[in-house]
Structure formats: structure tokens, C-alpha cells
């Protein structure tokens, strides 16, 4: 009968460095490396490499080698369960924006933190993402949209449409609206409702108004597709047919040749205050 493996003990990162010098050097350039290697605040952080990979004595005793000695590994092809990998990260990252990780759709689908983040070397400007920024004088590919676009293929394609928000210009990014680590809100939104998310930048539409437009007040995405469309102003359906989803008389925009409800901005040629009006004469959102 083979002897039971000895319980592993911590050996300290100087021992790790003896064989993994280049990796430790790269790690030391990261925010996490600076804290763990030079500014540790508690025992866990002092364990440095072993705080994530686990105690290394068995690995050392066996002479090293990939997957030897029961270390937790994070390589894509390591075969390590995502849950085991994530537990290493969650020792520290289980509050703030990561508070809802355990209940998040990404956790529920077996995603590992390292699917999106790189730990061992400095990558993106922020958040140690597994993709890097690409700045040009013409467009800025933000690492974050590239990371999310790995799986959310339809969303990535939508960013290239004629009507889009400035994601491909690098001015906003996915996590301005969504928290990929989970949230108590639908679609992992950062705010409690779709509208409150939109009001973060579009505070003028927040109201309250004397005349509220119910479909607007309830959900901006009744009319808009924020990820990009081929219709102006990110509309899901081109006007006037967007409006005729709910409204019929008294107008019936039918012939594009001679109808004011058709050309230019269509129905909003007249109903320009469609997001709400505070004017006593604004019942039809015209003032």
C-alpha cells in the first residue's frame, strides 16, 4: 500500500523564486504582487505565491514539475475545477463589487476568475484583464469589451453597428452598466433598474415629470437597444413603426412620400418631449 501523502507545509516565496524567478519577477510588477511581496498586511498575503497555489512543500520535495505536489494550478489546460481556482481568489475578493459572485450567473455557469483576469503579469491598465488595450489615434479597443466579447459574440458584433454608444471609441465600456461579478439586479446591472442605469449619464431624463410616458418611465429598453442597432438613436425598431407598436389613431404614417410623421425624426418631429414633459401643455409630449 502506497504511503499516504504528507500534509503539505508552506515553504515561503523565496523557495518558489529559486525555480520560478521569471514568473515571480513578472508578478512583482502587478498591484497584487506589490502588496503580497512587499506590503503584506496579514498572514494570507505574507504567504505570497502559496496564498493562491497552496502550500508547496510536497511540490518541492518531489522536485517540482507541472501539476506535481498538489498545488492549485490556474492554466487553461490544467484540468483544475473552476470552483477550486475561484476559492483562491475569493479568500480576498469577496466584497465590494464581488459581493454577489456566489449568486452570479457567471459563477453558476462554472466560470473561473482566470477566464477573464490574468494574475501573474501586468496586462490591462486596470483590473488585470486577460486582454490588453489597443490605443490608436482612430479607435481604442478597450480590454474589457474584448474580454466580454469572447463569449458574448452577438453583443460584440452590435458594437460595430451604425448606431452605437462610444464603446468602440473607448469612451465607455461594459462594466459602466454591468457588474460581471454579479449584482442583486436583473442582467447584472449595477443599478436597481434599467432606467436608473441609464440615468447615471442621462440624468436629464430622470424626472419626475408632470406627464410621464409609461413605457419610457418603466424601461428605456422598451424602445432602445443600448448595445447597438441599425436604427438611429439606438432604436429597436425604426420610427414610425416603433410608435405604432402601441399607438394607432389619430395619425397613421403610411406613405413616405408626403407625411410629416415619416421623414426626418418621424413622430418626434412633433412629439419631441417623448421622454417626459413638465409643461402643462405637454400632455402629448409636444411642449
Amino acid at each position, binding site marked *: 500500500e502506497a504511503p499516504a501523502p504528507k500534509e503539505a507545509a508552506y515553504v515561503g516565496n523565496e523557495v518558489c523564486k529559486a525555480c520560478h524567478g521569471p514568473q515571480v519577477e513578472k508578478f512583482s510588477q502587478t498591484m497584487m504582487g506589490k502588496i503580497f511581496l512587499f506590503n503584506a498586511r496579514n498572514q494570507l498575503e505574507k504567504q505570497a505565491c502559496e496564498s493562491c497555489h497552496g502550500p508547496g512543500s510536497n511540490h518541492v520535495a518531489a522536485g517540482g514539475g507541472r501539476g506535481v505536489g498538489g498545488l492549485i494550478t490556474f492554466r487553461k*489546460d490544467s484540468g483544475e475545477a473552476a470552483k477550486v481556482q475561484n476559492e483562491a481568489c475569493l479568500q480576498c475578493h*469577496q466584497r465590494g463589487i464581488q459581493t454577489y459572485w456566489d449568486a452570479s450567473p457567471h459563477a453558476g455557469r462554472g466560470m473561473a476568475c482566470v477566464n477573464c483576469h490574468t494574475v501573474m503579469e501586468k496586462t490591462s491598465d486596470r483590473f488585470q484583464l486577460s486582454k490588453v488595450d489597443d490605443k490608436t489615434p482612430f479607435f481604442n479597443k478597450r480590454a474589457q469589451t474584448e474580454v466580454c466579447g469572447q463569449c458574448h459574440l452577438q453583443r460584440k458584433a452590435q458594437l460595430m453597428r451604425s448606431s452605437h454608444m462610444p464603446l468602440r471609441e473607448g469612451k465607455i465600456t461594459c462594466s459602466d452598466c454591468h457588474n460581471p461579478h454579479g449584482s442583486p439586479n436583473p442582467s447584472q446591472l449595477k443599478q436597481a433598474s434599467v432606467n436608473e442605469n441609464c440615468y447615471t449619464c442621462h440624468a436629464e431624463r430622470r424626472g419626475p415629470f408632470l406627464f410621464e410616458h409609461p413605457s419610457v418611465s418603466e424601461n428605456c429598453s422598451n424602445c432602445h437597444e443600448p448595445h447597438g442597432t441599425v436604427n438611429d438613436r439606438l432604436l429597436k425598431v425604426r420610427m414610425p413603426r416603433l410608435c405604432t407598436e402601441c399607438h394607432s389613431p389619430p395619425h397613421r404614417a403610411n406613405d413616405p412620400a408626403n407625411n410629416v410623421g415619416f421623414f426626418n425624426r418621424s413622430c418626434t418631429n412633433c412629439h419631441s418631449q417623448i421622454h417626459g414633459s413638465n409643461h402643462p401643455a405637454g400632455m402629448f409630449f409636444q411642449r
Partner: protein
Amino acid sequence: RTSAEIDAGDYTISGSAEVDGLPRGFQGNKSKFEEYRVIPESVVVPQLQLLIGSKKQDSYFNFDAGNVGRNDQNYRLRFGRYGLFDVELEWDQIPHVFNIDNARTPYVMNGGTYTLRSRPTADDAGTFSSWINNPANTRAVDLELLNKVGKVSIRYTPTPGWSFTAKYWSQDTEGKRAIAFPFGAAGNSHIAELAEPIDYQTHNIELGGEYAGQGWSLALKYNGSLFHNSISTLVFDNPAAIGPGCVDAVDINYGLGQGPCRGRVDLYPSNQAHTVTLTGTASLPLMTKFLGTVSYGWRLQDDSFLPFTINSAIAQPTLSRNSLNGDIRPTMVNVTLVNNFINKLNLKAYYRFYELDNRTKPVSTSDTVLNDQGGPGDHFWTTIHPYQYSKNSAGASASYNFTQWLTGKFNVSLDRTHRSIPDIAGPNGAMNASEIKVGPTFDIKPLSWLLFRASYQHSWRDAPGYHADDDRKMFFLAQREQDKASLFADISPWQTLSFHAGFDLISDNFPSTDIGVHNARNYSPSIGVLYTPLEWLKLFADYDFDWYSWNQDYDTDRHYRGEDRVHTFSVGSEMDLIKDVLGFRIQYGFSQGLSQIGNRLDGARVDDPKWPNNTSTWQELLARLEYRVHKNVAVQLGYYFNRYQSKDYGVDIMKLWMGDMDTSPGQIRSIYLGDQFKGSYTAHVGFVGVKLKF
């Protein structure tokens, strides 16, 4: 760091700078080309970076700048002590161009007061056309916004358990965008399209504190947001009132050129919002975790009401009070439990409550006036009640690891929505709806290089009080059956080759809707490949097709169908031709969208002709060669091509006066900005740049 660091006593300094020249050839309209960016034909500084670190490795100071000196510039300064505090200051400018090519206006724009430079002197269409199309009577106007965002963010972590955050950010938005207002009621109206003056300021603050103990955490956060609109009223001359003098009249009489001399509108009112959020987590027995959030907020708005009309010939109806005193209290409660007691089984249950509690008191009036025109029977409303809704949601999911490579999950949830909608013109004063959602997901990873994900959800929304009448069909309230499916595959048989593919589907059916939206469907297959055949060569390609369609019945004889079809394609390569010396990158992106609306008429209907298609095609090519002449100096040569072509029946025809389109007698005085905001262009931009690292 790959570059040489500068030794400065206890600190090291490093950084990089890039300077590019951009010779350019351009044809077409600039508006879409510079929609959210500025690409000047000059020398630009796209990147600057300065990093200062202490040799003790305990503190940092980083400065980044992008697009220096341009309208889309960005600056970020970040400094702190590792593990103790982090301070970040950011300045970002986001331009948003609507039209800087061909919009014109006859108005002299002075803050919120717009006066006509001159007035037509007679009422006939010919005189009106000559007046508005005479360049002396109009001026070019740029329709664009500039958002300036300033942020300060501080994070302080005195111990690993405690953390405090404070953020302040302001957003200033200035510029102009198109907006239009009618004079008079439908059938007897004309439109004045204006360049709306925008001058918004929003101040936001966030203060938070959090403590994470052994097995529990508690966080408290306050968010405040103050929005101020410096131009909240717009007064503008009525182009239908012929000159040179104008006297207000109750009714519009085109023959006499009479009517209201001016119009007045209420632009977005200043408002404020405050939210307090408490979040807590706790580890419970039986490997259960509790997560909970409660938030309560105030949305307030109390701008004074404008009078019903600026038309001095009409008596002002009285209102029950002078301002709305709007008061909405958004409330959210979420309680979630996650359990892992049984090995391989993950259970989750949640309850969520969201309420838009509108405590605004009803407002009443003695009469109404519409669009500055008087007339009998204009009694459109007497009392307006606030709109509000609440939503109760509960759900559960069970996830089980059947094998090491197969995980299945089943989700079920129930949403119940209660709405109170102002009883404006129909019976749908209060609407309740219940929606049940069920569906499985599967995550299959049979090999370390093979991953499949699949999910499906079916939902039933029952809305027993809903009935679509001719006035309001409100698809978002109607009974609905929805199917959602998603497939994803990631196949990486070798380290050098990986494929990914996806398919997303959403299908909505509204079974009880006779008139209105019957169904809407969207599907989108995608495929991509990443191939690295050689250490120095990377190739990538992606393709996505997106199809969206909807069907609606306007009435029993008129049936409308719409389709959007979009092809999106990108391909590129990165080559490290001489390792760390000569690199080349080329990438091409293409997106083509088609939007069409079809009409089917029953019986003798002939009044809905075929509508033209709308198309848009966008192409982008970037080729960049980087030669490192020294370990810290690189020279860049590149070429950027960008083309946008568009056909849009809505704006291709636009001109200042739509006299040949807008032919009904009552509308011959309508004026527009001629705002062809989707103009096509072709841009060729070369760039020569130097990148310096230190």
C-alpha cells in the same frame, strides 16, 4: 518594465510618449466620421504615460493621457500606497456629433431665446420657399454635444477588513441638437425644427464604507446626484406668422399669416436623486450563504410650471399648484440564499422587490391649451395622476455536476408586476401582470480544450386586465410567450488554434393581441477563429449575422412587417516579423445593415405603398508597421481607411423646407434644419509616428 527606468533618488521614473502625424484624404460628410472622436489632419499625441514608483515598492504615481489637446482628450492621474489607499483623478471629454455638415437655421440663437432673422412677407408657398432657401436668411449651425466628465475617487483600506470609498464626479454637457415643435393641433399644424440649446451640469457623489469579518460583511453606501439645466425654457418665433410685424391671435389663419407669434417649451427640468444602499452577507450553517441588499431613494423635481401658452391672445387656464413637487421613492429589496451542502449540488433562491413609489400629488387644471393655439374643445385633461409600478420577483435554481464534465442547471422564477397608469384616454388605468420563467442550462466540458454551453428559457406572461383598444396597444403590458435560447462553443484542439461559435435566439409572441405587435423574433449566429501557426504570426476572424423581425397589425386591413438584417465581419493579423524589432498589424472590420418595412393590405386598401429600404455599410481597415530603431524608440507607419455609406429615406430628402413633401395646406410653413445626419463618407488617413519609452 521593458524600457530603461530613470533613477531619481528613492524613486524610479518610467513612461512612454507617442506623437503621430495624420495626413488625410476625405470625401463626404464629417458628421458620422467624427461622431464620438476627433481625427484632425495634424500632429497628434494619442498617448502619454508617466509611472513613478518608490524603490521601497510601497507607493505609486501613474499618469496617463490620451488624445492630448483634442476634444476627445482623456487624462488620468492615479497614486497611492499599496494596500492602504488609492486616489484617482480623471478628466474625460466625449464629443457627440449629430451634424456638422449641412444643418442651417433661420433663427438667431441667444441662450433660450430664438428670434427669426427675417420673416416671410406673404403667405404663399413660393414666397415662403424663397425666404427659407435664401442663404442670407439662414446660418449654418453645428449640431453636436461635448460631454466633459471630471472624477475624483478615493479608496482607503486601513485594514484588510475595512474599506472606505469616496467619489465625486461631474458631467457638463454643452452644445446643440435638433428638436422640433409644432404650432397648432393635428391637421392644422406646422413644425419649427430648432437647434436645441444644451447646457447641463450633473454633480454626483458616492460615499461608502464596508467591513468584511470572518464569514460576514456589511456595506453602507450613499449616492447623490444633482442635475441642473441652465436653459430650461426655449422661446422661439413662429415662422408662420408673417412679418414684419406680428400680433398674437387665438387661432392660426394661414391666409392672414396669423397665429401665435412665438412658441415656448419646457426643456428638461432640474432634478435630484439620492439613494442609500445597505448590503450584507453572512455564512450560515449547512454551507449556506446569505446575500441581501436594501436600497431606498428619492427622486425629486420642483421646477416651476410654465404658463400653458406664451400666446397673449389666449386666457391662461389655472393650475392647482405652481410646480410639480415631484417625489418618487424607488425602493429595492433583494434577499438571496446560496447553498452547497450537498456535494455537486448548488442551490440558489432569491426574492426581489422593486417599487417606483410615486408620491407626487395629482395636479388639476381648469382647462388646457395645446401648442399655443386656442380654440373650443381643447379640454384634454383635468387631473393628472402619477405613474408608478412595483415588481415582486422570486426564483430558484438548482445546479448539479452530473459528471466532472457535465453540469446541468434548472431555473424557475415568477415575476408579478403591478402598475398604476394615469387614466388618460382608455381603460388600462391599472395593469397587473404575472410572468413565469423556466428553463435549463447545460455546461459541457468533456475535454480541457472543448467547451459547450447551452441555455433555454420559456416564459409566460399573463396580463388579465389587458385589452388592446385602438388607441393604446402597449405591447410591453400585453400577454406574452417568450422563448430564449443561447448556444456557445469554444474549441481549442491545439494551443495554436481555437474556434468559437454562438447562437442567440429570442422569440416573442403576443397571443391575445389583435391589433398591435403580434410577434418579434431575433436570432444571431456567430463564428470565429484564432490561429497562431507560428510564434510570430497570429490570425483572427469573426463573423456574425443578426436577423430581427416583427409583425404588427395597424388595424384589421393593414399589416406591417419589419426586418433588420446585419452582417458583421472582421479579420486581421498580427505579425512579429523580427522579434521585438519589427511588428505589423492589419485588421479589417465590416458591418452592413439592412432595415426594411413591408406592408400588406387587405380588401380595397391601396394607401400604404412599399417603403424604400434603409441600408448602412461601415468599413474600417487599419494597417500598422512598427519598427523599433532603439530599445526605447519605435517608429510607426500606418494607414487607416474608413468608409460609411448610408441610404435613409427619412433624411436623404431633408431640406430646410419640405414644401414638396409636406404638402397638406396646413403645413406649408414647416421649417427644418436640413439635418442629413447620416451622410456618407470615405476617409484615407496615413500616419507616421514616433513612440518613445523612458
